[in-house]
């Protein structure tokens, strides 16, 4: 486990400086005129490593839970060495608390260091993509991983104490970790604070067009989230209510529906240059009647969310550790 | 220094075996006046028995006037059996060796020799016939 951490740290240390160099030279690229190629090579470099780095960071808390948390007490119970450990000159209470504090602290420290390195390493691309607040990037940067590590560790310890055996505890840890994190990240995080609302005219939205479905034709529009924000929902809504339904299209865009495209599901997109009149007429009508409503968490709430989420997970970890402690003291008799 | 050997199956309690072995050593001259008996710790370290057993044996020997405990130093032999018996013992031992050789030549095996001796000894008069 320790070896893995050291290996990954070395990886970051070795590949990071090159990426930063590429990024720095982007600042002067306008003058030299090689912006496109620089951006291209920067993205390429990242794409080589990024999936691995991100995956590692996401899975690290579960690994800490499995390898440092689950055996913490389970191994002593399993192998019978608790009969030696708990009859030395320290009370069971102190033994449990000390182990929890030391290894739990080490887990949080390890996760913190990894997170710091990954954040530094990926920050050029996060800045380019303005994706700091997006899922997965949020999860793997700054202080959030510290909270997850504490939680993963505590899950491992608790599973170990309840199962009294390391292997089932490890399996339970990773299952429970995923079961807790995924719903949180999908449902809870976007709702931690009331999202802000932004109304955008469809004129400013890219990638709008129509898609042939089994029912007929439906209207689609791309997202235009503000940079470094967390998207909550995107919808196209009428200025006075209502949606772009099949009926509305039939009522207002007859000529469009008559355009034949025998393959269902094939998108008919509006692109510059090719503007069949039926398309542009329909788009103009839609733009006049509808707008896009974005619900999002703005960039300036990023740190607030980091702190809230970390605190929630750390509190959960403390509660789990408390449960383990109580269980060991009272119930393992 | 004397070493004790305990026989768990002999039916004789360990402390009595120690007493007997000390007395036997005294009779055979293996222990003489002034010799030190092994410490309790030394005895139990070789023969895994309760130290109280050794203490009990030493106390009985002390009670019989054969040894004396000097606190902080050890337990020492202060009295023995009659010195003149040593010489007599040597002669008797030699006669016994001759007798055993005769018995062997007559074809007796070890068990028969032992049985013959024990039987004769047990039925011999306890007092000297004058």
């Amino acid at each position, binding site marked *: 486990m320790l070896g893995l951490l050291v290996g990954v740290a070395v990886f970051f240390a070795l590949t990071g400086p090159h990426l930063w160099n590429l990024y720095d030279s982007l600042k002067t690229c306008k003058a030299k005129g090689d912006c496109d190629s620089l951006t291209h090579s920067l993205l390429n470099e990242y794409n080589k490593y990024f999936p691995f780095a991100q995956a590692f960071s996401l899975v690290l808390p579960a690994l800490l839970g499995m390898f440092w948390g689950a055996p913490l007490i389970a191994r002593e119970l399993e192998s*019978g*060495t608790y009969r030696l450990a708990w009859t030395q000159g320290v009370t069971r209470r102190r033994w449990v608390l000390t182990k929890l504090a030391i290894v739990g602290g080490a887990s949080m420290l390890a996760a913190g260091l990894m997170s710091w390195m990954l954040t530094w390493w990926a920050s050029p691309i996060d800045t380019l993509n303005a994706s700091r607040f997006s899922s997965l990037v949020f999860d793997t940067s700054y202080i959030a991983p510290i909270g997850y590590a504490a939680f993963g560790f505590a899950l491992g310890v608790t599973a170990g104490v309840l199962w009294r055996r390391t292997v089932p505890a490890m399996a339970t840890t990773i299952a429970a970790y995923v079961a807790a994190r995924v719903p949180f990240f999908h449902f809870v995080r976007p709702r931690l604070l009331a999202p802000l609302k932004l109304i955008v005219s469809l004129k400013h939205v890219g990638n709008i067009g129509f898609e042939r479905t089994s029912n007929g034709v439906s209207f689609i529009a791309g997202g235009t989230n503000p940079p470094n924000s967390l998207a909550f929902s995107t919808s196209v809504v009428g200025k006075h209510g209502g949606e772009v339904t099949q009926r509305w299209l039939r009522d207002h865009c007859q000529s469009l529906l008559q355009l034949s495209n025998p393959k269902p599901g094939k998108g008919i997109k509006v692109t510059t240059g090719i503007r069949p009149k039926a398309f542009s007429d329909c788009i103009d009508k839609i733009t006049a009647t509808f707008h896009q409503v974005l619900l999002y968490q703005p960039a300036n709430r990023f740190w607030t969310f980091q702190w809230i989420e970390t605190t929630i997970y750390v509190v959960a970890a403390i509660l789990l550790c408390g449960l383990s402690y109580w269980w060991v003291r009272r119930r393992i008799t | 220094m004397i070493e004790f050997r305990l026989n768990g199956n002999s039916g004789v309690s360990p402390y009595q075996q120690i007493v007997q072995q000390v007395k036997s050593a005294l009779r055979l001259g293996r222990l003489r006046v002034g010799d030190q008996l092994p410490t309790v*710790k030394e005895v139990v*370290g070789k023969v895994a028995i309760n130290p109280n057993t050794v203490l009990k044996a030493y106390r009985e020997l002390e009670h019989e006037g054969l040894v004396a405990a000097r606190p902080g130093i050890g337990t020492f032999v202060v009295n023995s059996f009659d010195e003149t018996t040593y010489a007599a013992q040597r002669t008797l031992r030699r006669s016994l060796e001759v007798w055993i050789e005769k018995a062997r030549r007559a074809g007796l095996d070890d068990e028969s020799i032992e049985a013959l001796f024990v039987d004769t000894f047990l039925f011999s008069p306890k007092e000297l016939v004058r």
Partner: protein
Amino acid sequence: MSSALFATDLGKRYGRKWALSSCTLDIPTGHVVGLVGPNGAGKTTLLHLAVGLLTPSSGSLTVLDEAPASSAEQLGRIGFVAQDTPVFESLSIATHLHMGAALNPNWDAQLATQRIHDLGLDPNQRAGRLSGGQRAQLALTLAIAKRPSLLVLDEPVASLDPLARREFLAILMEVVAEHDVSIILSSHLVADLERVCDYLVVLASARVQVNGAIDDLLATHHRLVGTRRDLDNLPESVHVIESSHTERQTTATVSSADPILDPAWSVETLTLEDLVLAYMGQAEEQRRELVRPKGGVK
């Protein structure tokens, strides 16, 4: 303090089954106490209760006049060697000693290193590589170097070969000779206990069958042999523990505070093993009585 272990109606239950019940004992300090009984009789349960690894389901227990595992000092006064002498397999002997020093207030580091040296063990050796006998000696060293007032050992020699067993017991006896320490050790082999113990507790069917100083027990228990007869005519003070009859002869193991003077009986002394077997037999007989259907034919 005069009580090594004081239990009043002590019991431990797992679900419906009582591993130990109605256990009342007052074991004085200054003895080597043998706890003997068949497997599953409750010996390990009693010892684990004594060192605080288990909590009682009923009754009360004090060890060295304090509740077990009540404080770090109390834990420091008791040395425990569990069954199969557990050690941390991946740690070296030296690390074990460091751990002992860090976790025990009265640790005697010199004693510990001296013992390891005398045993001929390499301190850098991993504990997992030691033989059974060596591991037992390491566990004993860890317990002794704490300078405890009470040493508790759970079947410490059960899985050792005869030589290792003898060496272990010899070292244990040296410790008793040298230091003022009481010992409680359990075994299901009476022969070992006979040499080493001067106080006996017999546990069978989760209960204490008999306990007392061995000299007293052997003085008050006898085997009676006589022509075949009823045992109801024996005086009040004589309790029959076990009896068997052949066509012509009756043999009974009895306990009696007073000497038995009836000339009809031939009185023999018992070995410790005889005594233990008699009580274990009695317990087994009582257990069978409970299980036997009522009103059935014997």
